[in-house]
């Protein structure tokens, strides 16, 4: 009897200590400022950095050049495998900026271009696909307009109005000079 009592006493004491620890764990909250790789501050910084990247790329024209860097015969962006998006940053000025800002800091990104269809719906054309975003991914978007007189920037440099129906991923949705409004969406997350 006394033997079992010693063992039982030890186990009860252990349960009490563990119980106290569990209670303390439940009582403390993990706040947005708690340190971890999914820190809210890091997400904010990534979002602000990519927002600035898109804003500055739109300002110096490299963003428009990147959405027009299209090869109509392979049905995708120039230099990407036929029918597929790029697996890394695009080989143009926008891609260089993405590389220097994100890839070199071990941040992965997907780039999608949303466009308006004839029916008024929105569809997307993937430009860069690096994988499935994590739960802590952040998104930044920027709209750029392309016009009938905009030239493709790849080896094919025809104007958009000279292209046949299916030769560019976005259709011409406006009777006037405007061709389509493209929304570039960048999704970033830590690798």
């Amino acid at each position: 009897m006394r033997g079992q009592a010693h063992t039982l006493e030890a186990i009860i004491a252990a349960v009490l200590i563990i119980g106290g620890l569990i209670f303390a764990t439940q009582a403390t909250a993990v706040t947005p400022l708690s340190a971890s790789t999914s820190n809210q501050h890091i997400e904010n910084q990534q979002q602000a950095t990519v927002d600035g990247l898109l804003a500055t790329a739109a300002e110096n024209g490299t963003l428009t050049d990147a959405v027009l860097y299209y090869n109509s015969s392979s049905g995708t962006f120039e230099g990407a495998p036929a029918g597929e998006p790029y697996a890394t940053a695009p080989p143009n000025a926008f891609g260089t900026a993405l590389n220097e800002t994100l890839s070199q800091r071990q941040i992965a990104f997907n780039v999608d271009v949303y466009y308006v269809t004839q029916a008024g719906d929105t569809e997307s054309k993937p430009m860069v696909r690096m994988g499935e975003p994590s739960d802590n991914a952040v998104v930044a978007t920027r709209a750029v307009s392309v016009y009938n007189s905009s030239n493709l920037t790849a080896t094919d440099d025809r104007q958009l109005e000279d292209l046949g129906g299916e030769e560019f991923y976005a259709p011409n949705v406006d009777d006037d000079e405007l061709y389509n409004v493209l929304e570039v969406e960048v999704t970033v997350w830590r690798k």
Partner: protein
Amino acid sequence: MNRTRGQTTLDFAIGTSVFLLTVVFVIAYAPTLFDPFVGGTGTDLLVADRAATSLSGDFLAASTAEPGTLSIGCVGTFFDVSLDEAVQGVGCGGANLNSFDDDEGFSELLSLDGRNANVTIHELGAPASEPVTPEWASDPLVRSNDDSVPSDVAVSTRTVSIEGKQYRLTVRVW
């Protein structure tokens, strides 16, 4: 061994080791519970973020409608560099950055409240320790109220463009 005492010694050994293992586990585990809360860099992060936002979107911006696009005149005034002749005379509209040209003004402009900060503009691919010296500026684009940057700092970054070229603006607060 006394017949009436059975296996008391063995039971006691098992009981004690169970108890001691628990105590050791708790002592090893408990301090890690508080790791997220030590350091107290929480407010520094907010200060760094606010400073980066106001610099890129307001104080240095050519227009508050286009945050990230910096005015060369404001950049020259803030970092106290002489500008090349080609871009000289470009003023800094609105914000009067001249009145914040000393360390006190720097602290007041960024609401540092006794903290130290380092503001650097560098190439997208370069580290913050290597400020850029564009061809239109006489000196590197860096400003700080304390020369030595410790390793434990709160960092905030923005992508900005000056004269159509993209740079990274990094604010470090400690």
